[in-house]
Each structure stands twice: as C-alpha cells, then as structure tokens.
C-alpha cells in the first residue's frame, strides 16, 4: 500500500512538472501569436524557436495571396523562328486537372516557381542584361530547368523569359499586371558551369 501511495505521489509530481510546462507553453504560443512583433521577447531565440517549430502558419496571409506570379517562356532554335510564349505553369496545371492522379505535375510547377523565385531574388534582380546574371548559380539552375526540363529541345540557342506579377490593389479593387523581369539569353553561353 505504501509503495503504491508513494508511486502515486511520484507520478503526480512528474505530472505537475509537465502541467506547468504545458501551461507556460500555451501562454507563450498565445503571446507570440496575438502580440505585435515590436512587443518584448519577439526578437529572442525562444521566439524564433516557437515561430519555427511550434507555431505553424499563418496560411493565406495577405502578402502571399495578393501577388500572382507568372512565367512566360519562348525559345528559338538555331534554325527557325521564335516559338509563341507559353505559360508552362498553366500547362502543368491543365495536365493535372485532366488527370488528378498526376500530382507530380503540380509539384513540377512548384519547382519551376521555386527556381524562378531564387533566380529573381539574386542581387541582379533588376537586371535585364544576361551578362550580369551569367554564371550565377540560381540563374543557371533556372536556365537548365527551362531548357532541359520544360522546353526539352537540343538546339535551343535563345530563350526569352518574362516574369510578371499580377497584384491586387485594395484601393482600386482591381488587379494590375507588372512585368518585373524581361530577359533574353543564350542558354549555352550563359553558364560555363553547365
């Protein structure tokens, strides 16, 4: 009887420790969620831990849904005319809708947008001059993906990319399309590392 009584006391002590941890954890989650970022503790390591590990989200925030990026691509082979501009992302989506088990088509669109974002966010993001972006890892990855993964033709000597943002303006309650990057390059010359 005594040993089971002392076991009960012991387990309740352990439970009390965890109860306090849980209570403090819940209060911390609420604090880091509802208080503005300029409040105390938001720049501490513990806040970073909470925001990375315990506080997942928020999803569909305004800054993520207010801009819709699109990448238009056309190419020219060594012999021939320029192809029409193609939105490969829209094309991959169409393939997914026609066959919803082809989830990898959506993922390939995610991949294209990831490479585009990485290339665009390099320090040459405002450059339209291929020489300034040549041999940068991010742009070379994008170039390789577009040439081999999307276009898939051997003799492409010119690629023209237009990256545009369709952004919502709440003042005007309308969408505005902005070309943020317009660049033409030769994929065989732009990246020595390929």
């Amino acid at each position, binding site marked *: 009887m005594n*040993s089971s009584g002392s*076991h*009960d006391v*012991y*387990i*309740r002590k*352990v*439970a*009390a420790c*965890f*109860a306090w*941890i*849980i*209570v403090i*954890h*819940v209060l911390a*989650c*609420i604090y880091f*969620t509802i208080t503005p970022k300029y409040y105390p503790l938001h720049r501490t390591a513990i806040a970073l831990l909470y925001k990375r*590990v*315990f*506080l*997942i*989200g*928020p*999803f*569909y*925030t*305004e800054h993520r*849904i*207010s801009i*819709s*990026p*699109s990448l238009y691509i056309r190419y020219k082979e060594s012999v021939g005319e320029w192809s029409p501009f193609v*939105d490969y*992302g*829209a094309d991959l*989506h169409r393939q*997914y*809708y026609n066959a919803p088990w082809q*989830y*990898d088509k959506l*993922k*390939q*669109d*995610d*991949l294209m*947008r*990831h*490479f585009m974002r990485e290339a665009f966010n390099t320090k040459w993001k405002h450059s339209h001059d291929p020489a300034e972006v040549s041999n940068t890892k991010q742009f070379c*990855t994008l170039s*390789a*993906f577009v040439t*081999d*993964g999307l276009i898939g033709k051997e003799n492409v000597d010119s690629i023209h990319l237009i990256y545009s943002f*369709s952004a*919502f303006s*709440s003042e005007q*309650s309308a*969408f505005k399309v902005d070309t943020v990057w317009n660049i033409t390059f030769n994929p065989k010359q732009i990246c020595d590392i390929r």
Partner: protein
Amino acid sequence: MTYDRLIAWLSSGFQNPRAVTVFCKAVLILTLLRILFLWNASLVMVKYHYLSTPRSWPGKIVFAPSVLAGDHLSLVYIFFITLIIIGIFIPWNYLSGAIFFWITLNLYRITMPLTNGADQVQIALAGCMIFMVSTPYFKTAKMMAWQTVVFNASVLATQLIIVFVYFISGWDKLMTDSWRTGDAFLMISNLQHLINPFFKDLLTNPILNIVLAWITILFELTFVVFVWFRSTRMFTLIAGILFHFTIAIVLNLPEFALMMSVSYLVFLKDSAYIFLENVFIGKQVES
C-alpha cells in the same frame, strides 16, 4: 480543464493508447503515400537542385540520406519506404518514432523546393510521435511513471500544435482588412498556380466572398474551442475535414488537406474505435 484535472489526466495511465497508435500508423501511411506521389517530381528536382553536404559531422551523419539522394534518390526512397512499412506493422516504440522523425527531417531537406505547410505539420507531428509509446518499456515504477506522463504530454502537445495552426491562421485573418472585407477570396481567385479554374469565376462575387471569408475565420477560431468538448468534437472534426477537402479541390492542395485530416485522429478517443468495432464487427457476430 483545471490544473488538478490536467495533473490527473497526465498521471492516470496512458490516455487513449489505441487511438494514439492508430494516429501514428496513419501518419506513417500518409508519409508512404506522399513519397510515392512525390517520386517523379523528386527525380526531376534532383537533376537541377543541388543537395549540399552539411558542414558539421553530426549534420553529415543525420542528413546522410539527403546527401545521398542527390545521386541515388530512388534508393533512398526505397530505403525510407521499407523502414516506414516495417514501422506500420510493428508495435510503436521509441526507436520507430526516432527513425520516423529522422526520415521526416531528411525528406524535408530532400524535397525543400517542393515543400509546403503539410511538411511543417508533419515534422511537428513526427517530433511528438517519438514519445507516444504506450507499450510498457521500462521495468521500474519510476521510469514507467515518466513514460506514462511523457506519453500523455506528447499527445496533448500534438493536439495543441494542431489547434494553434488554426488559431494563428484565424487570428491573422481576423486582423487583416482584406480577409474581413472578403477581398482575400478575390485575390485567391487570381492565384493562377493554385486556383482550380472551375471555381475562379465563383470567387468574383463580393457577397459570396465575404460569406466565405467569415466562414473561414469563424471556423478556424472556433475550432480552437470546440474540439476540446465531447459534445462538439466530432462535429468540429467533420467540419474540418470538409473544410480541408474543399480547399484541396478549389486550391489544389490535397497534401495539406490529407495531413490535417489525418492529424485529427489524435483527438479521437479509444471509445470511438470500440464504437466502430461494435457497429461493424459486433453486428456481424450477432447475425
């Protein structure tokens, strides 16, 4: 739940061990399916996305599969699938939990360009699942006391993670003008890489958009409360499944829908499975 009730809940035996085991196995099955569906896209990805080697030796050891995946992705995936299948069929233990967490971390690193909210949720769940071991593991009463409390605390921590996913999103939407006015759905209708074209025109109606926006906000904020009460729990979870599957169809996010739906299993009690057994198996015995 008062503080005393919380202590009693944490200390009075493994809470709903069967339901928790079903939850763990369901997360494993979902991960297996995700690997299978992501395989093709991953093969394309590794041709262009370089998987760097971590600088530290612990990093090199922990993330060795993600480095190997650069050249041998299929082998790494087959290895992961084999471990996951073993984990599905053996009793859940600390080793299987740790291995699953390790697999999840490596998968996240391998598929970084393709990741979304589902991956973040999976990592959090996998971390808690390490401690969800209800088979008696230790011989001494003190260690068993720890095992019991840690099990119950990890289940509660998982439930809190899910609840806070909704709270954070709901709070952010409540504080954002475009969500309160319904303009957020108009913006969503413009997201070419997400929106299902069948629904695009529907989301241009301003009255419908306000209704949908407030349904979303209220669902996310009320989930936080209603999921804890027996009388409202099942209704809340069913509403959540409908909510996520609507998003999956309208916004092409089936992964996140499945991950959140599977995570709801952590809120179920053993009594729900006993009820289902009585309904499906009990009646067969009677007949």
